[in-house]
């Protein structure tokens, strides 16, 4: 699958539905324990040459902003780019089939045995690490975008309304969303 030279990667290669299923399955399995987005880039850009770096970045940004899990969205994007709607379905199917089966197995085991004290202790520890993973994401993405008082205010408003006061998400988005767009709208004469 590794083409040594491909000057026009996205035009030159048109993977089949089966290749989409197989490739996204490979990405899902490689990501055991996280790093799904890093693996997506590794396989799609470096290994398969399906997209170049810039196209992949732009697609990733779009997939992050739009609703839905980022990596599922990316599978939709890549699949649709090559094979339309069937391609999107094939890529999502490849990405999720084995993870869904594994999670289902874990669900059966968990709800069978969750009353066991030792399992509760293990999950208590694992949950602390899962919260940490979420906090680390706040720190990493926050460092990139929370520069200046207005973005910090938008961040705090969202956090307090949705997290502390538990207002419904739709209401929070209806309030903070338009304010965010007004703030970020490009103005002539400024960068």
């Amino acid at each position: 699958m590794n083409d040594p030279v491909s000057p026009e990667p996205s035009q030159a290669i048109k993977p089949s539905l089966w290749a989409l299923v197989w490739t996204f399955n490979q990405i899902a399995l490689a990501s055991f324990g996280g790093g799904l987005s890093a693996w997506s880039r590794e396989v799609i850009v470096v290994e398969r040459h399906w997209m170049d770096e810039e196209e992949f970045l732009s697609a990733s940004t779009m997939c992050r902003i739009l609703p839905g899990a980022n990596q599922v969205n990316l599978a939709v994007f890549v699949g649709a780019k090559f094979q339309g709607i069937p391609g999107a379905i094939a890529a999502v199917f490849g990405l999720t089939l084995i993870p869904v089966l594994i999670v289902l197995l874990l669900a059966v085991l968990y709800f069978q045995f969750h009353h066991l004290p030792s399992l509760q202790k293990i999950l208590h520890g694992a949950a602390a690490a899962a919260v940490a993973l979420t906090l680390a994401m706040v720190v990493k993405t926050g460092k990139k975008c929370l520069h200046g008082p207005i973005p910090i205010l938008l961040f705090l408003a969202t956090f307090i309304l949705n997290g502390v006061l538990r207002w419904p998400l739709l209401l929070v988005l209806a309030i903070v969303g338009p304010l965010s767009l007004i703030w970020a709208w490009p103005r002539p004469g400024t960068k």
Partner: protein
Amino acid sequence: MKTWLQILILFGSLSLLSIGGGNSVLPEMHQRSVNDYQWLTDTQFADVFAISQAAPGPSILIVTLIGYKAAGIFGALLATVAVIVPAGAVVYLVSRFWEHAARSPIRHAIEKGFAPLTVGLVAATAFILGRSTEHDWRSYLLTAVCTGVFVFTKTNPLIVVAIAGLAGFLGWLG
């Protein structure tokens, strides 16, 4: 039947609201599935969150676990499809004209403007999950240490989760 409909509507609508990824709708998912529908307890929610983070694939598969508890295997599959299809349809439609919108102000405003909002939603998720699982200083300390590891090193998260689980098993968290 009523539960199936609730699963379909809840996860289908959360799918469309999950701006910035699945973690941003966890507070709302928690509110509905724990407090409103009472499909699972507070602790179970935190547990399935931990499981979905450690398992391979997208972490939005937490809905598979919740759907399973609410309505068995069929509930699990229904929840999974409901959370994927609506957002996937939006991505498909937008991907048709995204490349042509490279310099449009709306694309710029969305890319820049929604970033702080998304971080706020993820912070809300960490806050709510932390509150439902952590009740004394030892688990706060463990979370703080793990956060440091995730921020400053490139350790595989699965290893950190496993070590944290071991710490819990050994009774270090009380």
